C-alpha cells in the first residue's frame, strides 16, 4: 500500500491510458500487494470459522503467500512498468507458487466444508475466479516476458481484469458481507433472494463475457453488452441492498468501518454509472474514463472495503489472541478500542476519502494536478501503516506472541 502510493507521484504517464506500463505496474501493486495480501490472509482466518473446515498447513500457507505476494507483487510491478522480461519471469514464478499453494490449501477446506450456509457458494465461486485470474495472468505475463507468443492480448487482459475484479474481489466481498455486515453493525440480514442469486449472476456475466471471445465480431459485441449489463445490474443491486440494510442497523454508534463501507458502496454505484461511458463513450474521453473507472473501483471500492474490515479484524484478533495466550482478565489487557482508537482510524478515513475524490478529475487534467490527491493517498497509507504498527506494538507489549 505504502509502496504503491509512494510510487505514484513518480509516474505521471499512468494517467494517460490503462494500457500504459505504469498503470499496469501500479494496478498490480494495489491488487497483489495490498488487496491480495489482506484477502488471502483473512480467508485463511475465516474459512475455519465460517464454513467449519480448517485449511491444512494454514501457517505455512500464510508464510508462503505473504512472502510470495510481497516480493512477487513488487517485482511484477517494476517489471511491467520498466518492461524487464527477467523481472516479470521471476515475479510470475513467485506468484505462481504463492497463489498456487493458497488455491490448493483453500480447495481442501472448501471441499471438506461441513456447514451449509450462504457463504460457501460465493467462496467457491471466488476460488474459481481467482484460479482463472491467476491462470490468465501467468499466460499474459509469460507472453509479455517473451516466454511464448501471445494471441488476443487485449481481449485476454480484459478477461483477466474482469475475473480478478468482478470475480475474485467482488464475489468474495459480497459473500463475506453476507456474514460480516449484519455481524458488525447488527443490521437485518441481506434479502434471501440476493444471497441466493447475486454471485451466480456475477459469475454468469463473467462466463458470457468469456464466451463472447469465441463468437464472430457482431455477435460478440452483443454478448459483451449483455454481460456488462448483467454485471452492472447485479453490482448495483448489491450496493443498494448493502446501503439499505446498513441504514436499518440496530447499532447506532459512529463507526469508522461503517463509513469506509458506505464510501465503498457509493464508489461501486459510481462504477456502474461510469462503465457504459468507459466502454462506449466519446473516443477522445475513453482512455481517461477507463483510468477513472479503475481508480473508483480499486481505490474507491476495494481498498475502502478492505481498510474498513481491517479496523475490526486486527483489533479483535489482537485482543482475542492476547487473552487466550496470557489468560489475562479482560480489564487488565487493552480492549479493541485501545488497540485501534477511533480518532486514529478516522484520520485514515478522512485522508483516504479526500485523496480519492481529489484524484477523480486527474485523468482529464495535466499530470501535475494529480499530485495533491496522490500525496493525500500516500499520507492515508502512511497513517494506516502506523495504526496497524501501533496495534502490533501494543500486542507485543502486553506479552502477545506472533505465531
Amino acid at each position, binding site marked *: 500500500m505504502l509502496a504503491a502510493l509512494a510510487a505514484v507521484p513518480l509516474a505521471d504517464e499512468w494517467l494517460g491510458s490503462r494500457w500504459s506500463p505504469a498503470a499496469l505496474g501500479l494496478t498490480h501493486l494495489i491488487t497483489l500487494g495490498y488487496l491480495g495480501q489482506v484477502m488471502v490472509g483473512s480467508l485463511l482466518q475465516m474459512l475455519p470459522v465460517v464454513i467449519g473446515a480448517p485449511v491444512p498447513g494454514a501457517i505455512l500457507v500464510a508464510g508462503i503467500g505473504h512472502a510470495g505476494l510481497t516480493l512477487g507483487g513488487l517485482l511484477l510491478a517494476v517489471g511491467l512498468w520498466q518492461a524487464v522480461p527477467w523481472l516479470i519471469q521471476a515475479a510470475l514464478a513467485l506468484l505462481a507458487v504463492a497463489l498456487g499453494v493458497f488455491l490448493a490449501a483453500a480447495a481442501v477446506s472448501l471441499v471438506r466444508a461441513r456447514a451449509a450456509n450462504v457463504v460457501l457458494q460465493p467462496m467457491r465461486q471466488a476460488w474459481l475466479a481467482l484460479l482463472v485470474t491467476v491462470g490468465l495472468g501467468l499466460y499474459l505475463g509469460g507472453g509479455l516476458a517473451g516466454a511464448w507468443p501471445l494471441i488476443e492480448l487485449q481481449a485476454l487482459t480484459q478477461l483477466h481484469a474482469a475475473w480478478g475484479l468482478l470475480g475474485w474481489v467482488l464475489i468474495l466481498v459480497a459473500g463475506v458481507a453476507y456474514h460480516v455486515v449484519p455481524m458488525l453493525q447488527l443490521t437485518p440480514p441481506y434479502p434471501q433472494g440476493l444471497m441466493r442469486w447475486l454471485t451466480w449472476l456475477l459469475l454468469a456475466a463473467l462466463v458470457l463475457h468469456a464466451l463472447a471471445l469465441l463468437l464472430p465480431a457482431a455477435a460478440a459485441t452483443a454478448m459483451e453488452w449483455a454481460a456488462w449489463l448483467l454485471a452492472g445490474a447485479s453490482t448495483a443491486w448489491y450496493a443498494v441492498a448493502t446501503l439499505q440494510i446498513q441504514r436499518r442497523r*440496530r447499532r*447506532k454508534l459512529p463507526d469508522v468501518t461503517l463509513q469506509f463501507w458506505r464510501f465503498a458502496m457509493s464508489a461501486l454505484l459510481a462504477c456502474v454509472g461510469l462503465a457504459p461511458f468507459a466502454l462506449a463513450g466519446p473516443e477522445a474521453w475513453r482512455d481517461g474514463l477507463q483510468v477513472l473507472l479503475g481508480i473508483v473501483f480499486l481505490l474507491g471500492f476495494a481498498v475502502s472495503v478492505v481498510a474498513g474490515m481491517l479496523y475490526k479484524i486486527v483489533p479483535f484478533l489482537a485482543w482475542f489472541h492476547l487473552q487466550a495466550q496470557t489468560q489475562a482478565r479482560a*480489564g487488565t489487557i487493552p480492549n479493541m*478500542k485501545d488497540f485501534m482508537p477511533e480518532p486514529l482510524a478516522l484520520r485514515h478515513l478522512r485522508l483516504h476519502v479526500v485523496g480519492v475524490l481529489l484524484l477523480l478529475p486527474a485523468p482529464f487534467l495535466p499530470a501535475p494536478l494529480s499530485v495533491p490527491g496522490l500525496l493525500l493517498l500516500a499520507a492515508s497509507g502512511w497513517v494506516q501503516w502506523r495504526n496497524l504498527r501501533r496495534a502490533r506494538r501494543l500486542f507485543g507489549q502486553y506479552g502477545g506472541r506472533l505465531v
Partner: protein
Amino acid sequence: MPQISALLAQDHNACDELFAEAENRVADKAWPDAASRFAEFRAAMARHFSAEEDTLFPAFEARTGMSGGPTQVMRAEHAQMRELMEQMQAAIERQNDSAFLGLSETLLMLMRQHNMKEEQILYPMTDRTLGGDAGLIEQLDETLHAKA
C-alpha cells in the same frame, strides 16, 4: 416443537437486540436507563449460557462422547464473555462511557463470531444427535424464557 438450533439461534438474536439497546443508551450517556438495559442483557446472556452449559452441552457430550471438542471451546468463550460483561458493569458503575464502548465493541465481535460457530457447526450437530429429545428441548425453552 422447535428444533434446538432454531430455538437457540432465535435467542442469540434476542440477546443482540438487548445488547444494541444497552450500548445505544451508554453512547447517549443515559446512565440509569443504560444500567437497567445492560442488566437485562446480562440476565438474558446468563440464561442462554445456563441453557447451554447445564443442559445442552452435557447431553451432547454424553451422547457423542466428545467432551474435549467444540463444547470445550464454547465454554472457554463463554468465560471470556462473562469476564468482559463484568468489566462493562464496572464501567457503567463508574459512568465511563469510553471504557464501556471499547469493551462492548470487543464483546460484540467475540459474541458474533461465537454465535456463528454455534449456529453453523455446533447446533446442527446437536440437532442431529439430540433433535428427537422433546424433554431436552422443553427444558432449554424453559431455561431461556424463565422470568428473572
